[in-house]
Structure formats: structure tokens, C-alpha cells
């Protein structure tokens, strides 16, 4: 049996943590784009898209991310699309992220006083102009803290991609624990890696929120 030093374990975990970061970035960027499209549709044609929007958000918020990953993984295969686990994991996490971000942002847009819509409407601005120059700049400011905060949920969510065989931090931890017979150390280190990734983001989100509340007063 090969002896593994603490450094060996950590080095391998850190290498795998790269894929956690990359997958998180994909999910966050993709989810942001899809979420923005969903929100735009809903704001553009409130009546036709409100139900669809609520259904979409309810579906992804009301089912386990693990099931979403399984469905993406087996679903794509069922339809004869032989894809890498990158696509399955990326797709599921993107859709999951989009639902949460769209809902967070919808709340931010809803928080903009009705008078802002009415004033810009009565100035003959088109829907696009209202959004671009009046509503979104204001909504964006209040959206930043919760959006940053949700990044932590995305990073933690990528851990579930390990279950469908995506080799990221958690999966690497499993594999290393199996060969080193040191699960206590390995999973403690895995946890630490996530903590180092997530905690600064949590702190930053909290800082932004405090700053925003201070400005408002």
C-alpha cells in the first residue's frame, strides 16, 4: 500500500477543486443568462408568462437538485444524446440556478416603486427604454447582495454533481478516501476547501447588504 501524506491528499483535492470552480462559473453564468431571459419574458408580457414563470420556479425550487441532476443525466441519454457528464451537470445546474436567480431578481424589480413605472410610462418611454434606463439600474443595485449570496448555494450545489460521476472536489474526496483509508482527514479537508471557497463570498455578500442598508437610511 502506498502511503499518502497530508500534502498528497490536499494537492489532489485542490486540483479537483478547479473543476468545482469551473462548474460553478458555468452554472452561474448560464443560470444568469437564462434567468434574465425568463424574467424579461415575465416583465414584458406579465399575463402570458406569469404562470409559466411561477411554474418553472416552483418546479426547480420544489424538487431536489439531486433529482434534477439524475433527470438531466439519464434524460439526455434516454433521448439518444450521448453526452459527457459536463453537459448533464452543466445543464441541470444552469436550469436550477436560473430559477433561483430569476426569482431573486423578480423580487428586486418588484421592489421598485410603481411610481417609477408610471413616471417613465408617462414620459413615453418604450418598455425596453423603461427597463434599460429606469428600472434595471435601480433593481440591479438591490440585486447584487442576494445574487452574490446565491453564488454560495451554486458552489455547494456543484457538490451533488459528484453523484452522477462528475469528478470535482467531493467526488475526488470520495476517491481519495477510498484509496487512503483516511476518510476523516479527507472529508474534513474537502469541507475546508468548500469553506475557503464559500466563506469569503458569504462575508462579501453580507458586507454589500450592510452597505446598501446604510445608504438607504
Amino acid at each position, binding site marked *: 500500500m502506498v502511503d499518502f501524506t497530508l500534502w498528497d491528499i490536499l494537492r489532489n483535492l485542490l486540483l479537483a477543486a478547479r473543476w468545482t470552480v469551473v462548474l460553478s462559473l458555468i452554472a452561474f453564468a448560464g443560470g444568469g443568462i437564462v434567468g434574465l431571459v425568463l424574467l424579461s419574458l415575465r416583465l414584458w408580457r406579465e399575463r402570458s408568462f406569469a404562470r409559466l414563470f411561477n411554474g418553472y420556479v416552483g418546479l426547480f425550487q420544489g424538487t431536489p437538485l439531486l433529482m434534477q441532476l439524475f433527470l438531466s443525466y439519464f434524460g439526455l441519454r434516454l433521448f439518444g444524446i450521448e453526452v459527457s457528464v459536463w453537459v448533464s451537470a452543466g445543464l441541470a445546474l444552469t436550469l436550477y440556478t436560473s430559477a433561483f436567480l430569476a426569482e431573486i431578481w423578480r423580487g428586486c424589480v418588484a421592489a421598485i416603486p410603481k411610481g417609477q413605472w408610471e413616471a417613465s*410610462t408617462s414620459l*413615453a*418611454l418604450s418598455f425596453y427604454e423603461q427597463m434599460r434606463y429606469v428600472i434595471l439600474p435601480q433593481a440591479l443595485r438591490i440585486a447584487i447582495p442576494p445574487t452574490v449570496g446565491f453564488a454560495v448555494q451554486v458552489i455547494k450545489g456543484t457538490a451533488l454533481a459528484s453523484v452522477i460521476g462528475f469528478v470535482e472536489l467531493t467526488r475526488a474526496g470520495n476517491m481519495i478516501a477510498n484509496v487512503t483509508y483516511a476518510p476523516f482527514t479527507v472529508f474534513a479537508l474537502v469541507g475546508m476547501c468548500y469553506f475557503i471557497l464559500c466563506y469569503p463570498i458569504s462575508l462579501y455578500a453580507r458586507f454589500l447588504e450592510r452597505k446598501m442598508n446604510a445608504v438607504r437610511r
Partner: protein
Amino acid sequence: MPSVVEASAPVIVDIAGLHKSYGDVEVLKGIDLRVQKGEVVCIIGKSGSGKSTLLRCINGLEVFQDGGLTVDGRPLLHDNAAAMRDLRQRVGMIFQSFNLFPHLTVGANVMLAPTLVKKSARPDAAAQAHRLLDRVGLADKFDAMPDQLSGGQQQRVAIARALAMEPAVMLCDEITSALDPELVGEVLRVVEGLANEGMTLIMVTHEMAFARKVSSRVVFMHQGRVHEIGTPDELFGAPKTPELQQFLSSLHN
């Protein structure tokens, strides 16, 4: 001195048989009203009488179910975005709660719609904004943010912002109701200046003394109808209906 309007002046706002309901509740029960160019029309009445709703129908903020409405000859068509955009360029509106865009400077608030909607060049729009801010007595506030201004100053910026679109008619929806009493005068003076320059104004107001002073006509609304209409002297001096008499006497107590 009430504005005097010649009978031959063109009609700017023409409302005919306008009905509006929220669900089962009918708030406007057939309104007919013609406003000529240069007129100052004040709408008075109890809260819930439908006066704000009527005002908001004129630029399409409220959708009405039945009747017709034209502004400067343009019919109001709710489902036609281009027609609505065209119509709203002719109608300025000032709100009770100012509704300045808090993320933009005072100057940018005034310039936004002309540059976007009228495609004015930025230097032209800026020059116009300076001129209008000067007119409302805020020439030095061009680069200020709205939250640095008093309520009265914000409302004057809102007036300048509406004027920047060079509207044919201005709608004023209880524009002094959210102001501290000492700030009401500065806003009303600006409005009076507009009236004297011949701007067509339709105002919902609780400032009866002001209404009496500047109006060419006063409309008393009651339960979703135009209950009484006439010159300020007729309505305030010799109210005909018991409802108006009661309304006016309730104000004195």
C-alpha cells in the same frame, strides 16, 4: 386672474362617454369633458370620486372599458404601443410623489425622455434642461441627486422633466399633497407661471384657493360622474347641487 380662453380655441383633450371599472366596481360612469387649448381645468371632489382615475386615463396609465378619448386629435388606443407612445409625448404628467428617477442626476432626469424618445442630441437636450431648470428656479441643481433636494424642489424638477417633452397638455395629480405646508407655495407659483404662459393644464387638487385663482373651469366630480362644471365663480360662489355645497362647506370645517 383666471385664464380666459376664446371659444374658438382648438380642443386639446376630448373625452366622450368614458366608462372605467375595477372588476365589478364602476369608478367612472360616463364622463364627457372637452378641454381647449390654454384652458386650466381643476378637478375637485371627495377621495374616491374618481378624479385621479380620470386624470390617469388621459395618458393611458389606466385602461378604460368604454368611451373615447383623444388628445390633440390622437385617439387613445391601449393596445397600440406606437400610438400610445405618440400620444404620451403630447401629455405631460406630474405625480403626487414626484417619482424622480433616484439613480439619475436632476439634469439626467430632465434629459432622459428627450434623448430617448425625441432623439434630441445630447448638447441640445442639456441646453434645454438647463433652460427648464432655470425656469423652475433650480438652475444650480443640474448635477444634484434627487435625494439631496427638498420635496418642493423635487416636484419642481418633475415639472421641468415633464415640460422637456413639450407636451400639449399637462396633468397634475395632487402635486402638492405630499409636501410640507411651507413648500406648497413654491410649486404652485411654478404652475401658475405655466398657466399664465398659456399651457393647457388639467389638475386634480385640494388647494381650493389656488383652483379658484387660476382655473378657467372647475369640475366637481361625485361618485364617478361630472356632477357640476363651470367657472370658478359659479362653482365656488354659487354651487347649485347639495353635494357640492356639502363638499365645499366640509372644507371650511
